[in-house]
């Protein structure tokens, strides 16, 4: 079975090729069928492979020799191990659901075929990313998903703002990619291999890493820069909220469930490197924690339904990095999984809301939608509960594991995690209440049009809702069941929690308590008191304004990087390029011309002068040579 693993990425690629070349000639239903079908087939393959993979397995499926140069040999081959399998399932599974959802959501869009082509291409690259059996092939997928992200964010390419958002996403990703690439190269230079196969880069690193401490730190940090870009961590996070410009299914698939978690995958894959690099680990944890809190605070003040979710994603990703940083690799991957479920659910739910609201995304214009769109409401509520970490739902288990590990590593991280969680619960319920409770605040016309989404959209919502509820059981902690943590065993990262049961319980209860308080606060504010977010920025106090404007990070980047770059480039062009360098070149030419134009007057036309010159020449020669 496993030797056919190459079919998994190939199927979406075929889908992409057919849809891409067929274009508008194909009917929409055929496109939908092809697009979803290819991913479904990939999903089925993934399941089949998954059933054949057991903990500790590692298979390499070689397709062809890609290229080699000197000691660098790169195969185009795939790795199949538990980590990859898990990601395969998430990508193809959620990918399939979102494809289905999209057939409904994008049905009336003129770029329907294009959309599906891009989605399939994205799935292909994402699969390549997690299946690549060496760093370079991973990088291929890594950049490929970036490209698809670019294409899909700027899907409605007539809109300049969207285009700018797409460009921003691509470029910020590329900043990370450069770090990633340099990290890869550093690893290659150090251990002379990039393959994940046995005896490849990872094994070599674990063998020689101790003696190359500094190199490993550097490599880990460089890789982390890449992860920051892709997974929207400080300081490269600002593209993700802007990326909401793309169609909502894209936000769900790429900017919540899969692509943005590539950074976690990559670090998990490189766990060996990080274990050699404690400082880098600490950096990861700090950045993760900061991002979690920072993004959460911004989320508190956002009024765009997708922006709230976007900041929530950033915050949750921060949490995952925190997990990676404190060594809870399994926890991070676990959270990736559950987050994929509930965040995809939330985004798709948001999409359904937007669909119902005829494109309105501002929660200040919503309210009281619970009755109008019940399925969406119910599933959205499940998602909200899951992300807030309400027990038994998936988010609870994964978040709990991360927090426990954080506490074990350093209580400060635990506190950070708690703060983020509290804020998450608050803004998520704020979002929920404002959207679904209270009175409708939109226009009359919008109210008239309110309707539940078609089946193609609601069914994925329901499936995801179920997954969000039960997804946590793959990693149920010891507290609740004996020998329960299946995921832990399956992945085999060996990051076992050593806290005492009492401590663990205490942490759990404390967490639940503060989250509960937070939810109540939200309830009180937005349901009981019926408060609404300010309509105008002027109504906010300075701190709120600062947060409302996302701490002006975009503006700061603009002022510190983009504008100076433009300015310097322009000045260099005008002054250094045109005046100095070209000026020197032209100046030489002009100089010769000038000398010529002045020198020609020596040719005065007068014989007397010529004779004089001749005599002077003779004198000069005589004086030089004879005296």
């Amino acid at each position, binding site marked *: 079975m496993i030797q056919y693993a190459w079919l998994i990425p190939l199927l979406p690629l075929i889908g992409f090729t057919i849809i891409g070349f067929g274009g508008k000639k194909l009917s929409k239903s055929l496109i939908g069928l092809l697009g979803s079908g290819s991913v479904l087939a990939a999903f089925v393959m993934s399941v089949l492979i998954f059933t054949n993979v057991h903990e500790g397995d590692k298979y390499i499926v070689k397709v062809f020799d890609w*290229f080699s*140069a*000197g000691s660098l040999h790169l195969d185009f081959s795939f790795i199949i191990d538990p980590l990859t399998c898990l990601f395969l399932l998430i990508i193809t599974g959620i990918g399939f659901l979102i494809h289905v959802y999209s057939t409904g959501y994008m049905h009336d869009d003129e770029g329907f075929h294009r959309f599906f082509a891009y989605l399939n291409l994205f799935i292909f690259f994402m699969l390549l990313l997690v299946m690549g059996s060496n760093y370079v092939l991973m990088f291929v997928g890594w950049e490929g998903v970036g490209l698809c992200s670019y294409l899909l964010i700027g899907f409605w390419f007539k809109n300049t703002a969207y285009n700018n958002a797409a460009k921003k996403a*691509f*470029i910020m990703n590329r900043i990370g990619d450069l770090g990633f690439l340099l990290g890869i190269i550093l690893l*290659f230079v150090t251990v002379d291999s990039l393959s994940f196969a046995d005896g490849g880069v990872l094994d070599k690193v674990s063998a020689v890493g101790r003696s190359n401490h500094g190199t490993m730190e550097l490599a880990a940090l460089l890789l982390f820069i890449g992860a920051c870009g892709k997974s929207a961590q400080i300081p490269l996070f600002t593209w993700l909220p802007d990326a909401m410009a793309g169609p909502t299914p894209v936000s769900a698939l790429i900017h919540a469930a899969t692509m943005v978690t590539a950074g976690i995958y990559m670090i998990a894959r490189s766990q060996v490197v990080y274990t050699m690099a404690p400082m880098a680990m600490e950096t990861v944890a700090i950045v993760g924690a900061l991002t979690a809190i920072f993004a959460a605070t911004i989320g508190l003040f956002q009024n765009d339904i997708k922006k709230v979710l976007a900041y929530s994603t950033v915050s949750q990703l921060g949490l995952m990095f925190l997990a990676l940083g404190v060594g809870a690799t399994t926890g991070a991957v676990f959270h990736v999984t559950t987050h994929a479920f509930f965040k995809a659910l939330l985004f798709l739910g948001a999409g359904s809301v937007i669909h119902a609201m005829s494109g309105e995304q501002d929660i200040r214009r919503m309210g009281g939608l619970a009755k109008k769109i019940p399925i969406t409401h119910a599933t959205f509520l499940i998602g909200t509960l899951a992300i807030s970490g309400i027990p038994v739902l998936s988010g609870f288990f994964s978040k709990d594991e991360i927090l426990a590990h954080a506490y074990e590593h350093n209580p400060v991280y635990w506190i950070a995690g708690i703060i983020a969680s509290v804020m998450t619960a608050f803004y998520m319920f704020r979002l929920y209440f404002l959207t679904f409770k209270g009175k409708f605040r939109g226009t009359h016309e919008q109210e008239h049009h309110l309707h539940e989404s078609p089946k193609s959209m609601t069914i994925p919502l329901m499936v995801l809702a179920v997954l969000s509820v039960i997804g946590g059981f793959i990693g149920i902690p010891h507290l609740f069941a004996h020998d329960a943590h299946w995921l832990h065993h399956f992945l085999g990262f060996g990051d076992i929690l050593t806290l005492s049961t009492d401590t663990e319980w205490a942490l759990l209860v404390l967490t639940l308590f503060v989250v509960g308080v937070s939810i109540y606060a939200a309830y009180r504010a937005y349901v009981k008191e019926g408060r609404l977010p300010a309509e105008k920025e002027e109504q906010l106090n300075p701190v709120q304004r600062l947060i409302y404007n996302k701490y002006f990070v975009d503006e700061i980047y603009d002022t510190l990087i983009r504008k100076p770059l433009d300015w310097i480039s322009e000045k*260099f062009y005008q002054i250094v390029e045109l005046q100095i*360098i070209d000026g020197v*070149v032209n100046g030489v*030419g002009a100089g010769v011309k000038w000398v010529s134009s002045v020198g020609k007057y020596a040719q005065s036309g007068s014989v007397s002068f010529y004779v004089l010159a001749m005599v002077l020449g003779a004198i000069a020669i005589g004086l030089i040579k004879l005296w």
Partner: protein
Amino acid sequence: MITALLIGLPLLAGILTLFVKGAGAKRIALGATVLEFLLSLVVFYMYRQNPDDSNLFMLTPWITAFGINFHLELNGIALLLVMLTTFLTPLIILSSFGREHKNPSLFYSLILFMQMALVGVFVAHDGFLFYIFWELALIPIWFICLMWGEGKDVGKITFKFFIYTLFGSLFMLAGLIYLYYHSPENSWAWENLVAGGQSLTVGQQSMVFWAMFLAFAIKMPIFPFHTWQPDTYVSAPTSGTMLLSGIMLKMGTFGLLFWLMPMTPKAVDKWGMVAMVLCVISIVYASCMAIVQKDFKRLIAYSSIAHVGLIAAGIFAFNVQGVEGAVMQMLSHGVNVVGLFLIVDIVSSRTGTRELASLGGIRNVNPQFAVLYLIVLLGAVALPLTNGFVGEFLLINGVYQYGAWMAAFAGLTIILGAVYMLRSYQAVMLGNTNSITNGFTALQAHEKTVLFVIAAAILILGVYPKPLLDVAEPAVLDLIGSIKAGI
């Protein structure tokens, strides 16, 4: 012998074309270049079979008084560049089919002469012969730029181009003569010049190194010898720009690799850092220049400087990855830049402008063009699975081994390249149409063909570059061995 045929065929076809009036000229030119491409495939095949095949080799006395021979020899690198030349020339000719050129027979015969000289540069194994072909390539392109160029300053600009490149190459000649006089035998053969060069002291080598470096640096061009390039690219007719950027520029990098590095290893060791810094400056500087350009063609021109800077940096790193990356990137850049300039031509010939600010929304009216442009663009920004990636990855890898900071700065091309390329794509293709672009017509058959071929090449080379690298590797290892041995 067959190598000589590679040179002779375009020459004869060029002469023939000169005497054919009207549309026949371009057909003959196209036919001849396609034939030439097939011939080069045969050569490729023969070389894969047996690199020492005597048919690939030619040695005839030419100017006996100076030990100059008509000496042709192929190694992997040269072979690939010949392939690039023969592959691109028909595309360049085909892409010009839609244009009404005054005096087409002269135009196409000049292109053919150009091809002859370019192939000659790559296969020459005699220093003097190399120089001759090097200069010979300059004349047709100068005429092409002069006679079919656009803008009122064409004369001035092309002259600057001519004299600037000649300035460099004369110093190269001086360097070669110097090597000749210090070589063990009375011969201009490459091996002999290498032996001569390697026997020199560091000081002597440095002199030769800088003299010859100047020629190559100007040709490529790298900072700060590049100012002729944007103007020339912009004012030249599209075919000329393609020839210049797609193939001719590789003469510089090839020369650097094959005619400079092995001759002056000690100087490379001593001064390589300076050259490397220039290359890196070139990358960053040209990228920044590209970012602020308002003219589409000029933007591409600057991007070319940035790319070639990286190639040169890889060469100066002189390790396997760097040099193979350079070879690979020479090919990729050739293909990509020809595609990009064709795109510029398609846009500007339909809209009458190259101002980025006045374009936009072409994707609405011509999605197919948009896709093709995107593919070429991806190749240019070195997205994985396009040809650009393989080269760039190897190059940065190679440069990293030379110096981590160098690689970090050189790697900025990844970011800055995306910035200017996406900017141009957005300005031209995205957004809403305006009065200039809403009448944008469909691609003509020849344009479509060329772009398809280029797009296919971009993807194929990106997915399966192995055969090319395999061909280059022995030659690269030889060269590096020779350089390292000489230090």
